């Protein structure tokens, strides 16, 4: 168990022992937005819980006993520690050193029972290049972590799709370690589930690393989506770019976006930017958006953050309508563009189109032939 000094944004406690963490009461900073009653099963160890298996045709994916995984990650909260104690197997995605994998490695995560602990360990070997798609279908309650190691000089793009019915719950830590001159891009697309809490984090092992954390989410009905991001710049000359866009519809929909970026004293030459935009499609939904930027050094290249939540931009709609486009189609173009803007950054056009189709379907829009944005 390690305890960090209490003055910064970093988690104070890191431990494999669930007893190191108290049960959330709702008064804690990191739990104050979450519906604790909905997430209750995630706060005590369930000895009956099932396992999560990775289904894939890729040679780089294996399911192994958890004991054989030497994870680089130490849990930082109660759900993480419980899931790590309770998990019996792990999904390992191992991209060998210097491998260049052209086709995306697609892995579907499948739970063996209605509540399961999950552990996924992704390693992109030095100077490798790969894209990974994780399909996390919300057909069971799942608690766990997807641990990502991007070795020196590697390039890894990870797309995680949370889609499916709106009854189940998912809590997932997504801790990433980025090596020297490595490039990591992650995008979470959150559409399904009753309550989804994602905790992506980035640490840099050496200088020159870059990380792009992207997210799109569409909350409807009584869906609750929380994304709690933590980027710790503890090495010089690294970059981070965090862009999350969400749309909310329905009086009970609730989303939370917390963007914590900490630039340590050693991290000179840092470039960091984080942004969250939320689009309210109807009356009543609640979007909490809190960017936090803490600088321990002023010797950075750039550091910024932005957050905005609002309705349709009347000027955008006027502009499109003034070109003959009917109001409803104009609104669809704006919403589609809102999301395509983020998904386009992935560099995976086919998956971008698939995601846009799923979003359009959820919004009840007819999909166009192709959105060549």
């Amino acid at each position, binding site marked *: 168990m390690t305890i960090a000094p209490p003055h910064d944004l970093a988690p104070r406690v890191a431990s494999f022992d669930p007893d190191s963490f108290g049960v959330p009461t709702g008064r804690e900073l990191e739990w104050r937005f979450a519906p604790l009653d909905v997430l209750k099963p995630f706060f005590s160890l369930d000895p009956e819980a099932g396992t999560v298996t990775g289904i894939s045709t890729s040679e780089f994916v294996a399911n192994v006993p958890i004991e054989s995984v030497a994870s680089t990650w130490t849990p930082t909260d109660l759900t993480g520690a419980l899931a790590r104690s309770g998990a019996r197997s792990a999904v390992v995605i191992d991209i060998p050193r210097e491998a260049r994998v052209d086709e995306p490695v697609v892995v579907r995560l499948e739970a063996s029972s209605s509540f399961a602990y999950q552990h996924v360990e992704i390693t992109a070997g030095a100077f490798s290049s790969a894209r990974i798609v994780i399909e996390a279908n919300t057909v069971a309650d799942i608690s766990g972590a997807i641990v990502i190691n991007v070795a020196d000089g590697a390039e890894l793009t990870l797309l995680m799709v949370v889609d499916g019915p709106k009854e189940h719950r998912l809590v997932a830590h997504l801790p990433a370690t980025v090596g020297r001159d490595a490039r990591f891009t992650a995008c979470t697309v959150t559409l399904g589930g009753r309550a989804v809490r994602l905790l992506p984090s980035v640490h840099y092992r050496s200088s020159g690393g870059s990380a792009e954390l992207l997210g799109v989410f569409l909350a409807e009905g009584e869906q609750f989506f929380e994304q709690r991001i933590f980027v710790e710049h503890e090495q010089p000359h690294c970059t981070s770019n965090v862009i999350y866009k969400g749309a909310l519809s329905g009086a009970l929909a609730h989303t939370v976006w917390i963007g914590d970026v900490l630039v340590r004293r050693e991290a000179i030459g840092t470039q960091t930017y984080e942004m969250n935009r939320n689009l309210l499609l109807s009356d009543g939904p609640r979007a909490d958006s809190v960017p936090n930027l803490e600088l321990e050094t002023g010797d950075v290249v750039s550091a910024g953050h932005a957050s905005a939540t609002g309705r349709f*931009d*009347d*000027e*955008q709609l*006027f*502009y*499109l*309508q*003034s*070109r*003959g*486009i*009917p*109001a409803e*189609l*104009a609104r669809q*173009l*704006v919403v*589609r*563009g*809102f*999301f*395509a*803007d*983020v998904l*386009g950054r992935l560099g995976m056009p086919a998956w971008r189109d698939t995601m846009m189709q799923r979003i359009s379907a959820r919004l009840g829009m007819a999909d166009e032939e192709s*959105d*060549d*944005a």
Partner: protein
Amino acid sequence: MSELVINDLHASIETDAGDKEILRGVTLSVESGRTHAVMGPNGSGKSTLAYVIAGHPKYQVTSGSITLDGEDVLAMSVDERARAGLFLAMQYPVEVPGVSVSNFLRTSVTAVKGEAPKLRTWVKEMKEAMADLQMDPAFAERSVNEGFSGGEKKRHEILQLALLRPKFAILDETDSGLDVDALRIVAEGVNRYRESSGAGTLLITHYTRILRYITPDVVHVFVDGRIVESGGADLAEVLETEGYERFITAAQPA
């Protein structure tokens, strides 16, 4: 032959201090093939006139009329006005992130013409129109107006004019923020459209500079929400040398 007729148009905007009247009785007719310049000082309401014709929801028309070939424009929605043949090139074109120029143009042309253009001829048409305005083909893949320079935004507006082929083009301060080269390219684009289409043009401007490239048939001086004097192209030269001072003084109530 088409005619855009504006008659005794009054319009106001809601402010914290109540409704404020900006257009105070505008009367103006533009026929196909004719170019009218509306010139006025800052704050005279000339851009409001452009927005009211296009149907911006920010402004309320309190009295008067606008008709296009006898049809009541004020009864039409914003998109219906565009489909009826009105086009507004905006002073400050709006960014639409994630919507590519090519997708936007094709959607607009489909809406205005009532059917989707055939893909092959469409791509050719778009490329030619872009080449006419000296626009890089890569431009088509960028998001609408996002990160465009001032000159790129205005060229993009004139590109839409060329592709949507309206009956009447309203150009709101199309010359503002352009250097001489960009102004020439944009003005040539407008002239090409005027000559090939025989459309009517309402050119709204603060400066006489653009009138060296686009010759108006009629010049109106717009002060305090209405037209205070109309004349030929030579009236612009008077404004160039004397400014708006005389008209502003004359418009003040005694």
